[in-house]
């Protein structure tokens, strides 16, 4: 098709719109096998993606599925359906558009497989599920185009790897499939294009006009940010004033817990009763949908939210974005700012609100980076093998397969282009027999080779279990929260199981902006009552935690080296001066370590500025060394700039802990049984299909919990340390959580220049670490000592003499 059909261009003209150059370019390139469009929010990105589909479908000649649209969010699929419906109806195009997500009814889903629409809007998981059915070839026979929206967000996680494998499968079913990726601004468009395209197809990158620079600044407040904390309560009056001055404000937070606290405080100060809502991933779906609907109607003046609103739902009249807390990552900040002002070629307006004084420094560094268009990011890694194992199982669920054909198909997926046949065979072996050195299961193989050489499920009923456990999103174990009523009250959302376990009757916590009282646990549901009179404990949500980019860390260290800080507000400059006065400021060429007691525990704060992952590894290695030398560490927490270790005894000589050979030796052996490795193992084992999250049955009270995945890890470590899943776990940890290279860089940088400062209490710079999430427990002698103390205390309290 060489020209946009007149009916469509006339409709544009009648609306008074012109077709943007990048939309025209996308149309002209519609026959290319793969195209990547990079455009700012509000740039008509979605229309650019759909224009060729609408044109090709305009004559009504196509029967069956024509275009599949994939987005990371269910809500986005529903939203796009509504937005696409309007032009299609107004132009009078004979096009059926439907969405299919986890929320679609079973009847509707079944009908879609028999009689698919022209355009199907879905998520990576639902698409992968569709490819697992025996009738997939029939359903997908006529597909021409696939549009991957917000591809930059998908590419950040294993969901993207899974999607690209599903696309490879689709491509095998319909060889003429053309791919389109729609992305926000990214630092490496070439890498994104290789991720999208069928290997080794070329992929043209179309860059839309990025529009004017954003109008971005720090929020001016009368109150001074506190030394520590993530609540930013001090900024409430100033934030309320901004809400009043704008039509609609999005208030972004980095974590759900912070969003809850901020919303609570905002509401307490909201004397004018401005309509303000809260939105995050742990809230009940109905609650979220109500907020979304109110937002679309323009009923809300502000929404307190988290990454759940990072992506493209068109919120209409958002004219201000406020980021509470340091943005951690310049690229994400730029993308969030784009949420304000969805009009093309109008500058987005954004304000940064540091939650504490360290974050003031981070915010100033981020502002400079935005002004210099200096985006950060790491190169994308190749596809992980746990996702590949799941894909093999999905292929088996859809019917018998030939191993060589499946391998050829998989290496056509960008992330798996460099996969070797040996690696593939190991994954196939794992799926078939478990892949253990002890060949215990040959009688009960999950996949069996048929006489014709193809592989199939031994038990066809296994297909159902595979489908139920499909996906790469790891939710931590959560429990639903409901108001206590006779027949089950209103659902409010969910909290993590580990948090629920710490609650006793009468405890209060915040959820969805209200304070509730814990009443009890019934059938694995947390029952609560409304209660507004006590200070709440805060629900802990893991949520997504972003790592501060190394580029931002470097900017901060450079700032610390200045003699004074004219670019910082006085209070923050004074605070850094105070740190310099009572302790020191970290420097690039030395390692600063502070030691101090707090709340009955000893603390050690190590300012390595090596990034969150490396600081985490440092925490593991240090606590291991401390355990060996009897210093009884209890746990640690890492941020991008420091690691805080707590334990029962003080460290007086850190030098032995930081000897490079000792650290390296620790790395060789620390894999044995630490919590981070187990966490990594659990995620990979679940994705690869070893641990089934859903078995169809309901979790009930009065029955033993299934045993912990830690036991599987320990068993493999002892009896089969080179098992595929252990290899994957090590690989994942090295890439994700270990990052040992940066520790070595740090050691090279500091040499033996280590400064240990003994302080009588927490230093200004160390204070924020106490509020960090993701504390890693160390299970060692300290736990035994604690238990002994507690046992004595409890027995004495109960008047029982220890036996």
């Amino acid at each position: 098709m060489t020209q946009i059909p007149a009916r469509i261009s006339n409709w544009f003209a009648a609306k008074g719109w012109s077709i943007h150059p990048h939309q025209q370019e996308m149309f002209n390139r519609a026959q290319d096998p793969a195209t990547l469009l990079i455009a700012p929010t509000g740039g008509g990105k979605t229309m650019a993606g759909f224009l060729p589909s609408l044109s090709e479908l305009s004559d009504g000649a196509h029967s069956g599925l024509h275009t599949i649209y994939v987005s990371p969010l269910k809500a986005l699929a529903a939203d796009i359906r509504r937005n696409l419906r309007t032009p299609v109806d107004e132009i009078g195009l004979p096009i059926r558009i439907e969405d299919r997500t986890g929320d679609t009814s079973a009847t509707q889903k079944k009908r879609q497989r028999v009689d698919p629409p022209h355009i199907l809007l879905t998520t990576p998981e639902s698409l992968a599920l569709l490819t697992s059915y025996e009738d997939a070839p029939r359903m997908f026979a006529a597909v021409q185009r696939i549009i991957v929206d917000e591809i930059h967000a998908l590419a950040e996680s294993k969901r993207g790897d899974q999607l690209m494998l599903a696309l490879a499968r689709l491509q095998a079913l319909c060889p003429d499939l053309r791919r389109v990726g729609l992305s926000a601004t990214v630092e490496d468009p070439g890498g994104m294009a290789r991720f999208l395209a069928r290997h080794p197809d070329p992929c043209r990158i179309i860059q839309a006009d990025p529009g004017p620079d954003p109008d971005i600044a720090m929020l001016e407040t009368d109150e001074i940010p506190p030394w520590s904390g993530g609540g930013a309560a001090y900024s409430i009056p100033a934030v309320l004033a901004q809400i009043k001055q704008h039509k609609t404000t999005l208030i972004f937070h980095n974590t759900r817990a912070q969003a809850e606290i901020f919303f609570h405080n905002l509401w307490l100060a909201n004397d004018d009763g401005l309509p303000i809502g809260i939105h995050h991933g742990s809230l009940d779906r109905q609650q979220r949908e109500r907020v979304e609907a109110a937002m679309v109607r323009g009923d809300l003046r502000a929404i307190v939210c988290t990454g759940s609103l990072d992506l493209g739902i068109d919120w209409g009249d958002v004219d201000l974005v406020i980021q509470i807390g340091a943005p951690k990552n310049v690229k994400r900040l730029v993308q969030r700012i784009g949420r304000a002002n969805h009009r093309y070629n109008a500058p987005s307006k954004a304000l940064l609100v540091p939650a504490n004084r360290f974050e003031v420094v981070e915010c100033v560094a981020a502002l400079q980076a935005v002004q210099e268009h200096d985006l950060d990011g790491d190169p994308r890694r190749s596809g992980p093998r746990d996702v590949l194992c799941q894909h093999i199982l999905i292929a088996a669920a859809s019917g018998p397969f030939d191993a060589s054909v499946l391998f050829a198909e998989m290496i056509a997926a960008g992330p798996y282009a460099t996969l070797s046949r040996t690696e593939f065979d190991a994954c196939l072996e794992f799926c078939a027999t478990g892949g253990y050195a002890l060949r215990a299961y040959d009688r009960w193989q999950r996949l069996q080779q048929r006489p014709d050489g193809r592989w199939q499920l031994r038990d066809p009923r296994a297909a159902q279990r595979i489908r139920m456990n499909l996906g790469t999103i790891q939710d931590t174990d959560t429990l639903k929260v409901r108001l206590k009523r006779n027949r089950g009250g209103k659902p409010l959302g969910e909290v993590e199981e580990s948090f629920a376990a710490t609650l006793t009757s009468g405890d209060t916590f915040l959820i969805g902006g209200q304070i509730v009282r814990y009443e009890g646990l019934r059938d694995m549901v947390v029952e609560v009552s409304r209660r507004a009179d006590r200070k709440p404990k805060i629900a802990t949500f893991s949520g997504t935690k972003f790592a501060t980019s190394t580029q931002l860390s470097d900017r901060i260290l450079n700032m610390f080296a200045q003699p004074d800080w004219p670019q910082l507000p006085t209070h923050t400059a004074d605070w850094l001066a105070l740190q310099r006065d009572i302790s020191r400021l970290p420097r690039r060429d030395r390692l600063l370590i502070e030691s101090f007691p707090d709340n009955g525990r000893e603390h050690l704060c190590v300012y390595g500025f090596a990034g969150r992952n490396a600081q985490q590894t440092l925490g593991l290695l240090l606590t291991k060394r401390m355990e060996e030398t009897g210093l009884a560490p209890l746990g640690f927490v890492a941020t991008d700039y420091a690691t805080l270790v707590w334990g029962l005894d003080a460290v007086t000589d850190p030098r032995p802990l930081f000897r490079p050979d000792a650290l390296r030796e620790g790395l060789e052996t620390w894999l044995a049984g630490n919590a981070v490795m187990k966490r990594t193992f659990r995620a990979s084992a679940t994705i690869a299909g070893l641990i089934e999250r859903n078995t169809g049955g309901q979790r009930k009270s009065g029955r033993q919990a299934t045993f912990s995945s830690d036991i599987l890890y320990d068993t493999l470590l002892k009896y089969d340390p080179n098992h595929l899943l252990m290899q994957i776990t090590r690989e994942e940890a090295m890439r994700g959580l270990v990052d040992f290279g940066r520790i070595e860089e740090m050691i090279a940088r500091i040499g033996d220049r280590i400064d240990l400062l003994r302080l009588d209490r927490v230093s200004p710079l160390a204070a924020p670490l106490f509020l960090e999430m993701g504390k890693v427990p160390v299970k060692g002698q300290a736990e035994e000592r604690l238990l002994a103390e507690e046992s004595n205390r409890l027995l004495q309290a109960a008047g029982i003499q220890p036996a």
Partner: protein
Amino acid sequence: MNRCEFSFAGQRLCALGSGALWWPDQGLLCVSDLHLGKSERIVRRGGSALPPYENRETLTRLENDLSNTKATSVVCLGDSFDDLDASFAMATEDRLRIVTLQAGRSWIWIEGNHDPGPVEIGGTHLSEWNCSGLTFRHIAQPNAQGEISGHYHPKVRLTIRGRSISRPAFLLDRARMILPAFGTYTGGLRSTDQALTEIMAADARAILTGEHPQQIPMPR
């Protein structure tokens, strides 16, 4: 010391850190809920192929306790096998291992709900067993006295100075005690669960397993 001594129904007993119960006067070691063959049973029924090493691990831990205590009698309190088929399907290596452990010892298999019948492995098979005022059975019964049972896989969760600690645990009151599960692939039931708070008396205690077993009032 890796044991916690206490008196129960007039007898001196020791809870070992491994989850086994040691009765010095009788030279008797009691373990519950070994669930041998669990991974085999799961895969046979179409589930995941878990690492097939749990029998080795369970038997190694049992062997350690046997050699440390020099026990002459062993009582397995039921659910020793994850099901009867698992007892038949056990690898030769694991069978030989059990035979070796049994050599020179009296060995009683109490029947459990997972293994409610004789298994092909040597030893005495009983539904319950009495000795010096103590009754060994799989599932606790109402109004029992001096009863030692398993079945529930009790565990205890504590929060101490902000650290949550969860351990398999022995539960005991004046009338009965319930052993934690000894098997490697076993989960636990919290002592706060109604099933356990209903059975155990108000002044019941828990002994947490681990390197140094610790006694506390049973959390309810």
